[in-house]
C-alpha cells in the first residue's frame, strides 16, 4: 500500500493533537470509563489497549463527538471537545470502526462518493482515486460492497477513513479479518501516515501489532492502568533480567553470581539456564561476563531477557482479575 498521494493534513498544529483531562463517561450507574487523562502529539501512533468492555470504544466515540462525556474535558485536533465544535472536529478527524458499516448495495466508489459528499470535499473524484490506490483497491471501484470479502470490506472502510486527510485518525481493529499480507500493507500505510504527521489512535487486541506500530500505548480497564512507551512500561513493571546459558552446569553458581554488583538474585530454570535479576544491565553484564570467564565457565550466551507487550498487558490485567474488577 502507498501513502505517497496522501496530502499533508490541516495546518493548525498548536498544542497536542488529542488530549483528555480526567475524562469520564457513565451510563446511569455503569461506568464506561473514568478519570482518563493523556496527551497525544501530532504524528504519534498511540495504541489504546484493553480487554473487552474496558471502555475503549466508548472513549473513541466520546473523542469523536458521538457521545458526550459525563465529566472532564478534552481537545481533539486542537479544538475543545464541546457540542458547538462538533461539526468542525468531525471535519478534522476520521474513524475506521471495527465493523466496516458499508452500504452493501452500493459499489465501492459509490460508498466513498457518499462520504466524500458528507465531508464536503471539493475534489471528490481525485480523493476517492487516491484513497483506493492507498489500500490497493483501485481495480475494485465498481464492485458492489456486498460481494466483497470481509477483508476487502475492511480495506474499503480504511479508504473511507483516508478520504478527508484527517489530522487525527481513529482506527478500531484495522487489521481484523485481514490476511497477513494485507495486514502488513495496513501497517505500512499506518507508518506512512505517521511520517506525514497524521495522529493515529489505534485500538487493537493484536498486541504484537501495537508493539510494532505504536510510539506509546495506554492500557485501559475502565480506568487507565498504564500509559507510556512499551520500553518504559517494561522497565516499570518488570525487573531487568539477564539470561546465561553455559555448555555444562556451573559447579557452584552461587559462588559466581552472589556479590556481583547490580545482581539482585538468581535462579536456574528447567532448561538449565541461569536467570539473573539485575538492577542495571549496563553495570551487571560486563562484571557477570568477567566472573563467568574467571570461573572457567563455557559460556554459550549472555542475553537480556525481553518482556513483550503481551507480558505487560497480562501483568496488568491479571492484577485486575485478582482485584476482581473484570
Amino acid at each position, binding site marked *: 500500500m502507498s501513502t505517497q498521494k496522501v496530502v499533508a493534513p490541516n495546518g493548525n498544529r498548536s498544542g497536542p493533537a488529542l488530549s483528555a483531562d480526567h475524562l469520564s463517561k457513565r451510563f*446511569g450507574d455503569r461506568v464506561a470509563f473514568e478519570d482518563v487523562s493523556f496527551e497525544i502529539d501530532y504524528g504519534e501512533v498511540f495504541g489504546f489497549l484493553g480487554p473487552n468492555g474496558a471502555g475503549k470504544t466508548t472513549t473513541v466515540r466520546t473523542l469523536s463527538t*458521538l457521545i458526550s462525556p459525563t465529566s472532564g474535558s478534552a481537545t481533539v485536533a486542537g479544538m475543545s471537545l464541546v457540542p458547538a465544535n462538533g461539526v468542525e472536529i468531525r471535519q478534522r478527524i*476520521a474513524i475506521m470502526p471495527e465493523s466496516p458499516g458499508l452500504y452493501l448495495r*452500493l459499489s465501492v466508489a459509490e460508498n466513498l462518493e*457518499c462520504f466524500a459528499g458528507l465531508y464536503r470535499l471539493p475534489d471528490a473524484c481525485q480523493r476517492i482515486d487516491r484513497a483506493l490506490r492507498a489500500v490497493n483497491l483501485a481495480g475494485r471501484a465498481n464492485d458492489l460492497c456486498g460481494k466483497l470479502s470481509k477483508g476487502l470490506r475492511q480495506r474499503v472502510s480504511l479508504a473511507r477513513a483516508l478520504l478527508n486527510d484527517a489530522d487525527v485518525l481513529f482506527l478500531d481493529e484495522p487489521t481484523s479479518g485481514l490476511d497477513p499480507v494485507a495486514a502488513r500493507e495496513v501497517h505500512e500505510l499506518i507508518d506512512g501516515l505517521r511520517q506525514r504527521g497524521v495522529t493515529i489512535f489505534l485500538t487493537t487486541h493484536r498486541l504484537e501489532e501495537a508493539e510494532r506500530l505504536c510510539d506509546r500505548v495506554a492500557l485501559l480497564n475502565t480506568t487507565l492502568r498504564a500509559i507510556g512507551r512499551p520500553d518504559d512500561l517494561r522497565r516499570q513493571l518488570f525487573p531487568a533480567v539477564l539470561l546465561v546459558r553455559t555448555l555444562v552446569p556451573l559447579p557452584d553458581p552461587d559462588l559466581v553470581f552472589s556479590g556481583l554488583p547490580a545482581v539482585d538474585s538468581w535462579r536456574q530454570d528447567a532448561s538449565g539456564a541461569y536467570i539473573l535479576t539485575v538492577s542495571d544491565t549496563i553495570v551487571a553484564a560486563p562484571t557477570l561476563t568477567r566472573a563467568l570467564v574467571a570461573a572457567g565457565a563455557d559460556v554459550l550466551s549472555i542475553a537480556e531477557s525481553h518482556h513483550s507487550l503481551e507480558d505487560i498487558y497480562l501483568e496488568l490485567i491479571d492484577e485486575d482479575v485478582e482485584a476482581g474488577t473484570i
Partner: protein
Amino acid sequence: MSVSMTCVRAIYRKELREYRRNGSIIAGMTVIALIFVIIPLIEFVALPASASRTLRTGDALAYMLGIPAIVPAFVAAYAVVGERQQGTLEPVLTTPIRREELLLGKALAALVPSLAVAYAVYAFVLACIDLFAQPVVASALITVPGVLTQLFFTPLICGWSIWVSIAVSTRSSDTRGAQQLSVLGGFPVILVANLIAFNAIHPTLSMVIIIAAVMLVLDGIGWRAVSTAFDRERLITHIR
C-alpha cells in the same frame, strides 16, 4: 444554522441508489397503493350511469389521498432504524453532517418515490375510470378541482407521513415495528380523506387553503421537531 446542500445531496443520492438497487422497495410501495385502490376502482367501473348524480355532490376520489399518507411510511420508517441495524449509521454520524441535513436528505429521498408512486397510481385510476366507467360516471368523478386537490395535497401529505415515519424510526429499535407504527401516523389523513369522499365533510375553497397552509407549516415543524428528537448518543449506544 446553515444547511449544507452538499451533505443533503450526498444522503439523497445514496438513498435513491439503494432504492434503485433494491427493486422490492418500489414494487412493495406500488403494490400497497394498488391494493388501496383496486376495490373502489372496480366499484366505480361497475357503477350505472344513474349514480353520476350522487357522485357530483362530492369528491369520491378524495379517498386516494390516503395513498400519500401510507406509502412513504414504508421507506421513511427504515431511514434511521434501518441504518442503525445494518451498522451504517455510526460511520455517517462521525462525518461533519448535521442531523438536520441527514434527516432532510432522507426525507427528500423518501419523497421522490412516494410522489412517483402516488401520482402514477392516481393516473392509473383516472385512466381506468375514463376508459372503462360509464362516461357520465367518469365525468362526475374526474373533475378539475378534484385533480388539482390531489396534485397539490399529495406532496403535503407525503411530507407529513415522512416526518411521522422518521420520528418513529429515530425512536424505534426494530424496522418492522417502525413500519407498523408509521402507517398508523397516516390514519388521521385517511380518516379526513374518507369523510370527504363519503360526503360527510364538504370542503370549501377557503377550508382547503387553510388545511394546505396548516400542512405546509406542519411539514416544516416536522423537520425541526424530528431533528431535535434525533439523539446521536442514544442511537449509537442504545442507552438513555
